[in-house]
């Protein structure tokens, strides 16, 4: 895994290091699934459901990361669908269109919101780093 949870007094803070922008978004998806209590490796079996389409747009990469997690969290809250794998990703400028696979679950605790506090998604060395604080 290339994501880790940083200690935060009241909320949860996620840090990601990855080789590409796609990998950052994929790691964010995996981290959210873990937070919602679903192991990604276990989710590839028969319990998987039909893929869902997710789209987001933003004027910059950090905002796009926040919008991506917001959409995944909303899917979990509204449909009980926890995305566990990124099937396809089309990333053009500030537009993101993705197909995600996952499982139906009753995922507590759900994310209340994705904050802009210390929000980062930028090149670093040969790859990218990202950070986001979630209100839980």
């Amino acid at each position: 895994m290339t994501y880790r949870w940083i200690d935060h007094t009241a909320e949860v803070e996620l840090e990601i290091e990855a080789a590409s922008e796609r990998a950052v978004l994929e790691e964010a998806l995996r981290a959210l699934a873990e937070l919602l209590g679903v192991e990604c490796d276990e989710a590839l079996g028969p319990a998987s459901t039909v893929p869902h389409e997710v789209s987001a747009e933003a004027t910059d990469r950090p905002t796009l990361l926040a919008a991506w997690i917001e959409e995944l969290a909303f899917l979990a809250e509204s449909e009980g669908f926890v995305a566990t794998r990124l099937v396809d990703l089309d990333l053009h400028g500030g537009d993101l269109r993705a197909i995600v696979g996952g499982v139906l679950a009753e995922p507590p605790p759900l994310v209340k919101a994705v904050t802009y506090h210390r929000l980062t998604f930028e090149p670093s060395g040969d790859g990218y780093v990202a950070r986001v604080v979630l209100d839980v």
Partner: protein
Amino acid sequence: MSKPHAVLSPEPVEDELWELPIGTVAGMRVPARVFADAELLAAIEQDRSLEQLANVATLPGIVDAALAMPDIHQGYGFPVGGVAATDAVVGVVSPGGVGYDINCGVRLLALPLSYDELGKRRERLVHELSRRVPVGTGGRGAREGLRGANLGRVLSRGPQALLEDLGIGSEGELAFTESGGCLGGADPDAVSARARERGAGQIGTLGSGNHFMELQRVSEIYEAAAAGAFGLRPGQITVLIHSGSRGLGHQVCTDFVKRMDARLGHHGIELPDRQLSCAPIGSPDGQAYLGAMASAANFAWANRAALAHRVREAVRSVLGGGAAEGTRQVYDVAHNVAKLEEHGGRMVCVHRKGATRAFPPGHPEIPVEYAEVGQPVFIPGSMGTASYVLAGRARSLDRSFGTTCHGAGRRMSRTAVRKTVDGSELRRQLEAQGIVVRALSARGLAEEAPAAYKDVDRVVGIVERAGLAARVVRLRPIGVVKG
């Protein structure tokens, strides 16, 4: 990757008050001040909360100082326990200064019986409360809300809509609710379709995280006159409800942080933290937020009214109709809200994020029954310690825009507390102390363990010595329902 936070060390300026001067963080327009003692301040310095408070002091139009109550802890943008008043004419409103759980707050109900009279029915009552009150954020907890509620009318009128449409609550309860349970200027059209979708079906649900319902008994009385005015006597049974605007409020804040962040340049505003995004109060963005926030606040008051209705039904089921009819609402206060108020002769927008209004005796916004003793304030401690009923005091108007603390304040992260506390063992310990526990998960119980919080006695002692509020009653938990 993540840098350790800079340690900021405020200097003492008055009793129980510490200050970070202008210049501590670039762009500060006013000082940042914290109500604390030396021991609490040392704990506060362990996370980023003081840096966040100093950032708040950069908001355009902020008046006097960015303030923090002794229960301050690290949040996002604003610290939890933060207070900021901005000039109503030239200042800004910041959705992050209210937070995602708009009008998260506390309602206290007093039952017409004592601990001894409740006797062995205590466990059955806690069980019945847990059975009737949906908890958690997903599944049953999200969708078993009150049936028949008209969302549009709730957004406009709050619990008054439930009373008129469904016969839930009473005029008396509205009178014993901050702002009568309805913020003026609500604009349901400013609430997005997604916010409505997230809130639909959630009226009358508790939620998760630190939201809870607690059965308590009055264990100590400090001010007999105020306790008498609040209808509280030694040994009396009370129910404390802690919940907010659920998914609807979360989405309103999300929508407006995003919208204002995108338009900061348009308004010529530079900020040290994007989560502080804001807009001039008089601008279309500012007015739209205030309208949507008021709608979410009204939703939250309706939510707590519906939860109180479910408590009464549980009381009726276990203790009978007389006990249900005799269950009285002491008051209902908001913890997360922005309100236009007059302070020092001018109108300001008071952002209270994890802080409670605490108006003193004689203030015109207090119910007439409490006019001589001050506004009730409820301070939940932790499920293993105690909660307090306070009353607002006059110095709060001079020192904190009529505000006091809202709880004990977290001191440990959820991750850290899970490493040291086992949820199942905690349940056994609490039950050994005579506290009946009903929780959705052992993990959630552990995250809210008493060890995760500061000493509520110390926090309350500071606001009392600072003259913001006075202790009236101490409440000891005897049953907990947790999301």
